[in-house]
């Protein structure tokens, strides 16, 4: 059941993005930014945690989950150390994904060749 929900919920979140692409003139950068901010809001009002519990990676892999991660991190850090947690919580929770993207990006630049150069 875990896997079915991961597939269905993940797919449905992507369909919403596709409808935004087809019916609005939003660029990919705007859609991704919107998804992350929406994820923070959905997490803050308590709607996203149940979805993650149900669908696992189906809810955490789309960028909404990235927003949820930021919001959850801030909340935990505020619980632990009060107001300074606002600055440390979000990016601490999201560090793995951000660092991996940067590191693999630099690695790809190091060994990869631009198609134009070939």
């Amino acid at each position, binding site marked *: 059941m875990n896997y079915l929900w*991961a597939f269905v919920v993940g797919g449905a979140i992507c369909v919403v993005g596709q409808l935004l692409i087809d019916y609005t003139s939003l660029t990919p950068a705007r859609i991704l930014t919107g998804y992350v901010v929406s994820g923070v809001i959905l997490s803050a009002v308590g709607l996203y945690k149940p979805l993650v519990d149900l669908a696992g990676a189906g809810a955490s892999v789309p*960028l909404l989950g990235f927003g949820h991660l930021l*919001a959850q991190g801030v909340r935990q850090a505020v619980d632990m150390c009060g107001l300074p947690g606002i600055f440390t919580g979000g990016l601490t929770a999201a560090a793995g994904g951000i660092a991996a*993207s940067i590191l693999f990006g630099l690695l790809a630049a190091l060994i990869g060749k631009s198609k134009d150069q070939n």
Partner: protein
Amino acid sequence: MKLNPKEYARMVSRTSPPSPVVKDCLWAFFVGGGICLLGEGLRQVFLIWYDVTMAGTLTSIALIFLSAACTMAGWYQKLAAKAGAGTLVPITGFANSVVSPAIEFKAEGWVTGIGAKIFGIAGPVIAYGTAASAVWGVLYWLMGKVG
């Protein structure tokens, strides 16, 4: 064979190909769902050795690695042309938005080329995500003080 307009409309809709929007959405659903399914499979494996938080982080890192590899091979862009939001919205799309300019702007140098261009999409995502989470942090802190 005589047809009234209603029957004709029904015949046309049965034989005509699905509208581009429906086709786009089916692609987005199956590819996006598939990437999440792969993520869930990885997460279950990581859960054998790690707690929920670390398993989630490792799932993201593994998917980002796979996305980087597919982007380098040129496969991710090909899939994205069909799958649209199905490849954009998952974390693999975020990774693609970092890795793709890293390769593309190599010719412009390591600092102002690669170093700056990798944040073309990731920059706004991280900036506004952080800002939104800080707003939430302030509200949550105030709620703790009041309640």
